[in-house]
């Protein structure tokens, strides 16, 4: 249908989604799309990204505070530390679009997130997923789910965005999420940096 309509490079995914072995997103097309208007500048979108990453970091720290189990605590501290690197990446991108923003501690001082990656409310998410937060495997599965949903949300944001520069920035952020997901996959498989 598309090849007869001017599309030269159409590829069928053999077996469809049932054959897909990687992570999958869920939810309707409009899930959490009310978070943005669609006409945000790159700066606004990057600031939103920082809020989301800070939110996820807060989630990991809060969860860590609620456990005494050493392996779990170590994992959660490690994941919170990884989020710090993600925040730095986004902040560095923010500096390129607005060089007047160059003091990261000052910028972050005003950020008190209630929401995290994927657009989820932190406290509600913790309550609804408490059973997964009792083991390192559960935490990693949840972390991968969050990064998958975050990737999906950023790409749906890109679809909605009316500014080409903002769209490109959202694609860059989505590429970052892809690498976050890959890194979590390696930790899950026990192939990554020591905790």
């Amino acid at each position, binding site marked *: 249908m598309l090849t007869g309509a001017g599309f030269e490079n159409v590829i069928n995914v053999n077996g469809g989604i049932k054959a897909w072995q990687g992570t999958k997103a869920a*939810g309707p097309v409009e899930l959490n799309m009310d978070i943005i208007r669609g006409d945000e500048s790159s700066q606004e979108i990057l600031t939103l990204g920082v809020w989301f990453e800070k939110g996820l970091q807060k989630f990991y720290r809060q969860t860590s505070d609620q456990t005494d189990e050493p392996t779990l605590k170590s994992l959660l501290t490690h994941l919170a530390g990884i989020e710090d690197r993600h925040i730095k990446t986004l902040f560095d991108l923010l500096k390129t679009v607005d060089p007047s923003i160059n003091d990261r501690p000052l910028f972050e001082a005003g950020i008190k997130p209630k929401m995290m990656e994927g657009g989820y409310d932190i406290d509600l998410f913790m309550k609804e997923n408490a059973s997964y937060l009792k083991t390192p495997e559960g935490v990693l599965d949840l972390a991968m789910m969050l990064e998958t949903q975050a990737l999906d949300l950023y790409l749906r944001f890109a679809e909605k965005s009316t500014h080409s520069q903002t769209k490109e920035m959202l694609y860059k952020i989505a590429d970052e999420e892809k690498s976050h997901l890959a890194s979590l996959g390696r930790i899950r498989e026990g192939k990554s940096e020591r905790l």
Partner: protein
Amino acid sequence: MFGIKQLFKPIESLETDDVKKFVENHPEGSYTLLDVRQPGEYEGEHLPGSKLIPLPELIDRKHEIDPEKPVLVY
């Protein structure tokens, strides 16, 4: 006016492992993942970042897809 041959031109197929490698090796925004199922199926699960255009709507909504970029359809 399309020729009949163009409408039934066979398209390339990739196994999901190769699609996964394609997605990993191509920057976001350089291709389209297109989900042609129904909204309920999409809601249950979908490939992250895929665009939903149910098959019956595809001809009328093809303008929403960039023809210059590869389109991976499931």
